């Protein structure tokens, strides 16, 4: 999963700048920064969405990582994590296994935590532990 530090097209990072308004579904692969407005849905298998302070989304978000510093009206389903910073205004339900919230953030909605049972188990072998064989798998 790519982060937000890289710049330009080579980093695989997309951008919806301030003053730009998008209606409809937005699909991206690696990373997307939103400083403008989006109405619709924002979807990525494992990508990272960053909503900047000027960003205003009226959209359901289904991504890997969701970092919120602006406004979001809609539900968020993040497979890896959600970060909500002090300038954020969120109205909607959030589903994620990892949630970071900074003091001052406005958040209105239900939070459901936990991984979806959609991945194969990845056990870590423990030396000298026969107990591992008793229980396998994870969600």
């Amino acid at each position, binding site marked *: *999963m*790519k*982060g937000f530090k890289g710049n330009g097209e080579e980093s695989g990072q997309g951008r919806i700048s301030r003053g730009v308004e998008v209606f409809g579904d937005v699909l991206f692969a690696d990373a997307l920064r939103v400083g403008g407005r989006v109405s619709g849905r924002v979807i990525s298998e*494992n990508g*990272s969405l960053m909503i900047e302070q000027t960003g205003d989304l009226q959209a359901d978000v289904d991504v*890997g*990582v969701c970092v919120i510093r602006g406004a979001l009206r809609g539900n968020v389903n*993040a*497979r*890896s*994590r959600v*970060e909500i910073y*002090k300038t954020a205004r969120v109205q909607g339900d959030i589903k994620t*296994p*990892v*949630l*970071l*919230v*900074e*003091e*001052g953030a406005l958040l209105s909605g239900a939070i459901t*935590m*936990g*991984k979806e*049972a959609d991945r194969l*188990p*990845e*056990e*870590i072998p*423990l030396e000298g*532990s026969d*107990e*591992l*064989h*008793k*229980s*396998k*798998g*994870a*969600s």
Partner: protein
Amino acid sequence: MRRLDQRTSRLSWFRSWVSVSALIGWMRSRISSAANLLRQGDENSQHQSRTMPVVKIARYSLVLMDSDGQVVWTREWDSGGVFEFGPRQRLWVCCGFTNYSDCETEISEYEIELMGEDGLVVERFGDSFGDSVIIPPGESKHFPAEWRM
């Protein structure tokens, strides 16, 4: 007689002037100490947020243990890239376990560990159950953890 009256009046004026100036002095000292306290508190909180460490998290893991403290199951997850956890922030992590085996799994305590890029544990959360929790085959349980900085 008149001189005595004049002296008494001057004396009472002087007394009231002294008490008023004492009151003003006392108020000044109170205000100044309150301002100092406020300034000190502000400096302390600034110093605290400056000195409080920022933890970089890349992965996290769940460790399940039985009543003897033996590890019965563990798994590590990627946090979706490195992120920072610092002052004035709260972090919740929720890990799930599903018993895919044919027998029951007994769990007495669990730990959720946060790890940096180097794989070292930077924060740890642990909790235990009064009575062991039995997870029948095919059933799941979620284990939560919370940190505050």
